[in-house]
């Protein structure tokens, strides 16, 4: 299993795009940021992070670049492309529609 069971299918892409929309980052930083912003609720394993990043890269949504990291070592930094920005808009819109719908279903009062 490369994806944790508690992560809704397809949302990993959305999370990664959103995080990279803020600033370019390398893989390690992304994993730290993910845990931090989701308050450890959404755990993305180290193992599933990289295949997901590589898929996004091959879709042309994010671009990679080797730069010196804050620790003084060469690291692969990812940043959002124009195409990725558009994709992020689409996915977040879709997510909001879906989560809104689910929320309203969950809040239905039992008769």
């Amino acid at each position: 299993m490369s994806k944790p069971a508690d992560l809704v299918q397809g949302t990993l892409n959305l999370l990664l795009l959103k995080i990279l929309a803020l600033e370019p980052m390398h893989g390690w930083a992304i994993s730290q940021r993910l845990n931090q912003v989701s308050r450890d609720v959404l755990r993305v394993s180290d193992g599933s992070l990289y295949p997901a990043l590589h898929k996004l890269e091959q879709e042309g949504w994010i671009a990679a670049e080797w730069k010196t990291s804050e620790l003084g070592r060469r690291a692969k930094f990812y940043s959002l492309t124009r195409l990725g920005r558009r994709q992020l808009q689409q996915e977040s819109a879709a997510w909001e529609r879906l989560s809104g719908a689910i929320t309203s279903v969950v809040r239905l009062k039992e008769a």
Partner: protein
Amino acid sequence: MRLEHWFYTIPLRLRSIFRRSELDRELDEELQFHLEQRIQQEIATGKTRHEARYAALRAMEGMQQRKEECRDARRTRWLEDLMQDARYAIRTLIKTPAFTLSAVLVLALGIGANTAVFTIVNGVLLRPLALPEPDRLFLVSHMPTNNPFITPGPEMSDRDYIEFRRQDQVFESLATFGGENVTLTGAGDAVTMNALRVTPDFLQVLRVHPALGRGFLEEGQHETNVALLSDRLWRSRFGGDPQIVGKGITLDGAIYTVIGVMPPTFTFQNAELWTRMEVRLDPHNSFIRPVIGRLKPGVTPQQAQAELRAFAATRPLDKGEKRENFVTRILPLKELFVANVRKLLLIFAGAITFVFLIACANFANLLLIRGASRQPEIAIRAALGARRSRLVRQLLAESTLLSVAGGLVGVLVSVGGVRSLLAWLPSGKIPRIGEIQLDGWVLTFTFGLSLITGIVFGLSPALQATRRELREGVNAGGRSVTMRRERLRGAFVTAEVAMAMILLAGAGLLVKSFLQMRSVNPGFRQTNMMVATLDLPGSRYRTAAQMRALNERILSAMSLLPGAESVAAVNWIPLRPEFVRGDFQLEDGRHLPHGFLVDKPVVSPGYFRTMGIRLLSGRRFTERDNLSAPGVVIISEGVARRLWPGGDAIGKRISMEDEPKASDWLTIVGIVSDIRQRSLADTPSPSVYQSYLQVNQPFFLSHINFVVQSNENPAMMSAEIRSVLHKADQELPAQSVTTMEAMVANSLTDTQSQMRLLGIFSIMAVLLAAVGIYGVLTSSVLERTHEIGIRMAMGAEAKDVLWMVFRRTLILVGTGVVLGTLGAAAVTRVLAKFLFEVKPNDPFTFLAVTGILVTVAILAAWIPAQRAARVYPLVALRHE
């Protein structure tokens, strides 16, 4: 959106393919970096370095799998697999050189032959004309459909041309031209060549410019006797003289000033020379010529067509013309060159496609046989977990590799093929020969064809070889499987036979046509006859009297030649393309039947005797039938039968004039048999002969043929005849001196070369089909050795086994012949135009062709059948 996507992804994919190791290194580095950070973090929580490392690796959930997933994300996995398949295929193919070689050769033959024909079709029919913006060049045609004198080509009368050109809005420029033969003297030996008389805009329309000198002056600016030379003429006759512009050359005895030389790349209907023509309104005559135009940019041919239709709807009609009898057409200029050969070339292309498909069927059968022999290997790979799709892909890689190799060799084959095809095609009939070459389109065609062949014809053998029952049991080899395999091979063989049958039937029909045509009695003598042709230039011979005097001189000189039995002259000799047809008036006031036209040869008194044309009644012309004697004619049987069915033609009077005066009436003095004037394939033509001693119009005398009947090998006289002509007038160009037999043979060359080409194609088809039959039977006998052994052990005799093989052959071939006959019956109709006195469904031909095919099939089955009959039961049973 899509495009932007590619903008990002294509460089990525390319990098994945060509920088694979670099990417892998980067992947390692990236993961290593992550791992080290994680280890640092874990150490910070108090773990030992060893524990931290273990935890970090566990968080990765399997380092190697993750790497694989990252590589999969690159989406180039298929290509890596493909490379692997190809490498494996190359290894296995090299291990079986006999199979590889035969497959490559079969395909090289099929693809090569096809490429050769496509090269010609591409050069002649498909390539755009080698002129600037050729898609704006069109022919403008406005022709009556009911005029017996003209074959309705895409042309226009010059009267209409002038008016259309005045009104036209859609063409940038329009021009017209006419071909003629001119004789060049004073530059080496006198020579007659093709020249075009063109209106001044001709070069503008085509957008070509002389390489040297200038083009014609614009319309309205007067210039006379100016000529443009072709590059070839300039080099061969004027030594490439750079000072040629402004010099004079002699054409038909008149001096023309050279104004320019065209570039070597410019060819137009094989013309060597272009002279200027003004189209003027002539109240009496109107020439009909092709009209070419260049459309204004952005104008469609449909708009031009609409304009032309509007023009045709309003143009004033002449007496007797009906508007509905005219057709208007706007055709691509290319039509001018290729309309006559398109059908023939397409037929050859169709025929070669059959040959190609037969080669492909053989290829598929080779693959099937190979698949059968590789069963153990495939079963083992399947047992080890290879999916069927993977196995099929592997086999397809092999077949595609073979077909591409076949295509490569095929290109080499086609280079020779094009050369032979051009030699076999009717000489001088194929336009644009200079543009036939191996270009990018041809190579694309061949490569695409090879790929498709490998995949399409590799697919069913691949599916067959990987059937589940084969994959499951390593030692199954069950009978049901054998049966199914044999059925598929049999189907291919049947298809081959059917296609070979269709081709053979087509070739057979052409052979029969040729034989029929050759055995036609043309109505005149063909053996021991020499024919010399003269065109008298108008500049030297103006009057009929001058021409008659020359004829007289030549005739008497020729009759003195040793070996000359008799000599005669005629203006339009049979079997040549030029002839004169027309009508005449009857003295009794009757009108000729509608559409009844006769040939009007003008002959010397000895013509009928020399040519062996039989006199049926009355008398022949004599020397006394001259200008001072009453006018006489001799009619042919066809005229007599049609106009005087009672047999009382002799003594009746006719006239060649539209409004005859008393002296214009000519008395019929004799009736001769009909001859085939125009071609062997044409029906005998009714003719009205006049004596050249009584004809006064130069038109009827300026073109003249001398016929010499000799009592020895006529070709021996050729030099003597030439010297007689030369002595009679040294300024006359050397013209054709040939035997009548050569002329007859020449008139057969079209049919002959069609027959030869289709014959060669069908021989290829039959041989390939025979190879197919042989291959399939041989392999099936080998695979069934065991079974045959059992049969023989059970008491079957050699003849039973022989019969078993032959029966299968006959079933396959029989089915193929039936299907082929049906196919041929449907297809040979396209040949109808090329056949002579043979129906496209001629049962005799079909029967003969069937006989040939069955014989070939039995011969092909002979060796495998013998091998089957020699199976020794004990050995066979030990065969396991």
